Every structure is written in structure tokens, then in C-alpha cells.
């Protein structure tokens, strides 16, 4: 079994799935923030994207810039087949852990 993804890695990969062709750094940052419901450090997102790319779970390519960015290129990310497999595996593991329990848990407060 491959290495299980961390929560933040899952959040970033799922953001790429949701954003599809619009998944560049800033959009991923905003999507992750919206899903996690808190402010996220840009550095953490870029470091995670780099790590996922090193593991060949995602790929990236440069796209054209816009005037708001001073013409600087956007780096677009896309999820690779290995990334999809890793997400499916992470979901299966989480479901296995919860099997037989009712969510939300009660009676332990």
C-alpha cells in the first residue's frame, strides 16, 4: 500500500480535482481556505504542491500571465493518475476506520 496522504495533502489534491483546468496557485490557495474554513499560509500550499509533484501525484505547466499579475506566468496544476489512486486510497482508509461507528460520535463529552 502506498504512503497515506495527510489531511492537507488531500485538501490540496481535492482542490485540483474541483478546480480542474483553473487550478493555479492562487486559486488552489483560495479553494483550500474555503474548504478548510480558515486562513492558510501560501507557503504551505506551494510546499505541498511541490512535494506532490515530486511524488508524481500531480503535474504542472506554465500558462499565460494577466495584467493583474504584471504579466507573470501562471503555473497550472493537474492531478495525475497516481494522485487519483492516492485520494481513493485515503478515502477508503478513513471509511475503514469509521466502519461500525455512527457519526457524529456522542456520549464521550
Amino acid at each position, binding site marked *: 500500500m502506498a504512503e497515506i496522504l495527510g489531511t492537507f495533502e488531500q485538501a490540496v489534491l481535492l482542490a485540483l480535482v474541483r478546480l480542474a483546468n483553473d487550478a493555479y496557485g*492562487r486559486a488552489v490557495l483560495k479553494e483550500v481556505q474555503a474548504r478548510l474554513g480558515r486562513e492558510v499560509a501560501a507557503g504551505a500550499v506551494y510546499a505541498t504542491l511541490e512535494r506532490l509533484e515530486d511524488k508524481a501525484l500531480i503535474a504542472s505547466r506554465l500558462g499565460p500571465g494577466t495584467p493583474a*499579475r504584471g504579466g507573470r506566468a501562471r503555473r497550472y496544476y493537474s492531478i495525475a493518475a497516481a494522485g487519483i489512486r492516492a485520494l481513493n486510497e485515503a478515502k477508503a482508509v478513513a471509511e475503514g476506520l469509521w466502519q461500525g461507528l455512527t457519526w457524529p460520535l456522542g456520549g464521550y463529552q
Partner: protein
Amino acid sequence: MTLPTSAARRQTPPRWAEALLRAALGAKDQESVVGDLAEEYRESLLPERGRLRADLWYVRHVASVLWHLGAGSGGRLRSDLTHGLALGIVLSLAVFATNILLPVLSSRTARWEQAMDAEPYVTAGWLFVALLWGMAGFAAFRRTAEFGAAIRAGAIVALASMASVMLTFVLIDNVFLDIVSRQPEKIWGLQHSYAPNMRAYINHTFVKSFLLVLPVMTVAGAVFGALGGAAARIRKGFAS
């Protein structure tokens, strides 16, 4: 070349922070990351939060990017700082042992301390430290294949290690003032200064060291980092 208008200037993130970001990132990340933060600054933050809060957001996120990705892709600022601090801790322990422990343990260990102050030992110690700065450059070049990353790694490791050693000196010289006051070079220094007492002399010396010695050491670290990078490049050439 035309100067930007005041309206255009208001749309721009703090230039010093953007320059810092550009300088610290590797070629792969530079354009896209700087562009992403500039886009967020102009399109969301400035209209929604105003200039001051937008600037604060920008600086905070530049700091987070430097922390995670600084010194080039794969040559992280955090990793270089950690190596520098680890070296600083080892050197600080050596400073504590030679300046405080050895002089007070026994007359024999006190003689060891005096012997270790001899020129060849001090030179060997500095060469060893410089070798470690060079190794930081060597490792950074191997990770990134960029000379800039090697130079930055050497400089950061030198800065962090020397800053922690100096802080150790400040701490032990102030806490163990009675012991360090017996050191001949300190007595000589106090006699040839305008300081009213040993504590004032020591702390004045440290302030000068931080302002003068630390930048010189950082530059020296950059030079040894570059040499380490050159060694890595030569080794790579031989291997291929």
C-alpha cells in the same frame, strides 16, 4: 524609462517584500508565486481590505513562502536555518566548555583551555566551521543545480551559526562575569577601552560584533557556499 504614477504605485505590493521573495525563490517558482501573490493583492485584498491590511497580508504570506520554499526550490530556508542553528548549538557547547568549564574544573583543565587558545587550534577550528559552510553549499547545489542556492545556503548557515554563537557569548559572559573577567584578553581590552566596567565593556564589544562581524561572517559563508557549489559541480562533471 518612465516613473510609475502614484495611482499605479498604490496597486503594487510592498516592493521590498516582493524583491525579497523574488531573490529567495528558485527559477522554477519565481514567476508563478510572485505573480499569484501580486494578483491576490491587486484583485482581492486591496479593494476589500485597504492598503494597510493588504500590505500586512502580503508580508505575512511572503514570510510563509520564504519559510517553506526560500533559497530556491529544494533548498529550503527552514532546512538551512536548522543546519545553521544545529552548528551554532555545537559551537556554543564548545564555547561554554572552553570558556567556563575547563577554567573552573581544575588547574590542569585550565591549562588545556590556554593550550586550545593557541593559533593552530583556533585556525583549525575556523577551517572546520568554514568546511561545514561549504558543505551546506555543496548539498544545496546537489539538490537544485543552482549556484544561487549554494551561495544562499552557505550564507544562511553562517549567519544562523554565528548569530547563535554570539548570543551564547553574550549569555555566558553576562551570567559568568566573574569567571570571564579573569581572562587576560578581557582585562587587556577593558584597560584599553573607555568602558566603566567589565560588563559594559563586554556588552559594548558584542554590539560592535553583531554589527560588524556578523555581516562579514555571512559574506564569508556565501563565499564558502559558492566554493561548495563549485565542488559539487565539478564532482557532477566527473560522475557524468
